[in-house]
């Protein structure tokens, strides 16, 4: 335990880096997936193509993707952009499908009713379709958030910072406590992120009843698990 007190500032700095590496893939994934998901929902051919690409992308092991990134992006091997880009691709691979499903679930009658009330396509999307799809998209974002926070640790294997450094350093020094601190820290960050997403969801969608969302969340939980 004294190790943690003595090295707390180092661990804290690693945790801050970890957060900084985790947030961009989650946010970028969300921003990219919602329009793509809408596209997949709207156009049948778009659905087949996008979901197939997403499926293939998700098949590629993440460590392989991180290592292949410098070739694709022309970056240096140690550039954190590689990690962020690879994890963003993963987030998109997971979220496109969820977003497409979420838009599918919005009843067409509700959209027709909005049109009948004089909503234009743009306003109808933002005020009717998107808010009704949002609970499921938020549930998907929670899944992506937990897996991203956990996958950031893999960056340590190719020399990047973050709490994963405690795993590689702890292994080299044969010091399980340090590794344990890394595990607990990663899980804590994932839990805090999860809580923040839930709170944002509640603040943005005060009307949404928890029941339907929860049923869907369970389905997501069954469906998706971290792909190291």
């Amino acid at each position, binding site marked *: 335990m004294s190790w943690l007190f003595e090295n707390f500032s180092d661990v804290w700095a690693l945790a801050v880096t970890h957060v900084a590496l985790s947030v961009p893939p989650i946010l970028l994934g969300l921003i990219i997936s919602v329009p793509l998901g809408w596209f997949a929902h709207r156009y049948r051919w778009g659905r087949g193509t996008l979901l197939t690409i997403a499926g293939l992308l*998700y098949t590629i092991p993440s460590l392989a993707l991180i*290592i292949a990134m410098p070739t694709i992006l022309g970056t240096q091997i140690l550039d954190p952009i590689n990690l962020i880009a690879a994890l963003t691709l993963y987030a998109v691979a997971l979220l496109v499908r969820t977003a497409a499903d979420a838009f599918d679930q919005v009843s067409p009658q509700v959209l027709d009713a909005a049109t009948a009330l004089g909503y234009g396509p743009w306003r109808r999307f933002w005020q009717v379709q998107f808010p009704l799809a949002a609970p499921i998209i938020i549930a998907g974002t929670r899944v992506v958030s937990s897996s991203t926070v956990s996958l950031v*640790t893999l960056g340590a294997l190719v020399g990047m910072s973050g709490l994963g450094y405690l795993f590689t350093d702890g292994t080299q020094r044969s010091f399980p406590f340090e590794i344990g601190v890394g595990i607990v820290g990663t899980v804590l960050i*994932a839990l805090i992120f999860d809580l923040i997403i839930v709170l944002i969801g509640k603040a943005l969608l005060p009307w949404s009843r928890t029941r339907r969302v929860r049923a869907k969340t369970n389905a997501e939980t*069954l469906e998706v698990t*971290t792909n190291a």
Partner: protein
Amino acid sequence: MLDGLNWLLDPAHWSGSRGIPTRLLEHLAITGLTLLIAGVIALAAGLAIGHTRRGRGLVVGLSGALRAMPTLGLLVFIAVQFGFGVRLAIIPTLIVLVVLAIPPILAGAYAGVESVDPATVDASRALGLTEWQILWRVEFPLALPLIVGGLRSAMLQVVATATVAAYISLGGLGRFLFDALPLRDYPQMLAGAILVAALALILDLLFLLVGKAVLPAGVRATRGTRRSKTPTERTAA
């Protein structure tokens, strides 16, 4: 990318105990062994949960709790904490991989049995089948496509994580990444990444075909409407 391909095509890298075929076989052996162990445990539990409809919360809770768990951390923790871990790297590797593979297989088996029309089960019961016969002759065959779907997601995770496991000096395709890293031999790292990705894609395709082949003939006719809704199947697609 070209450097990686050149590395792959060099005949010198295709022989010996550190050659591509050996590493590929090691990777397949670790993956196969893990799926076998996890499959036995998770199928038994999943079929029981699906048949009795008890313990669903366990499945959901288990996969939720595991998602945030960094597998690399768990792996090196077990390896370093227990003395045998570093010398016999296969033990911590198998523990972590099995733990990782159980939730998707469990979910597939459970969702598969649950997706069977209750009327079908009632009809079997009315025909005088015992509960055991219902499970093996009715629910299991009907659940098979989803069970294969669960095995497929488990396989993808195991192939990916087995790569990471090479960090604690076990064989498998991950060795190409970790052997090359200290030497800054990027072509070899890239070649390793290509091999792992190719293996995952080929195995994925194989499971997809098996999943189609095990679909009972009677179900094939009504496929479109029934199967699209089940959760694990959607991952598989």
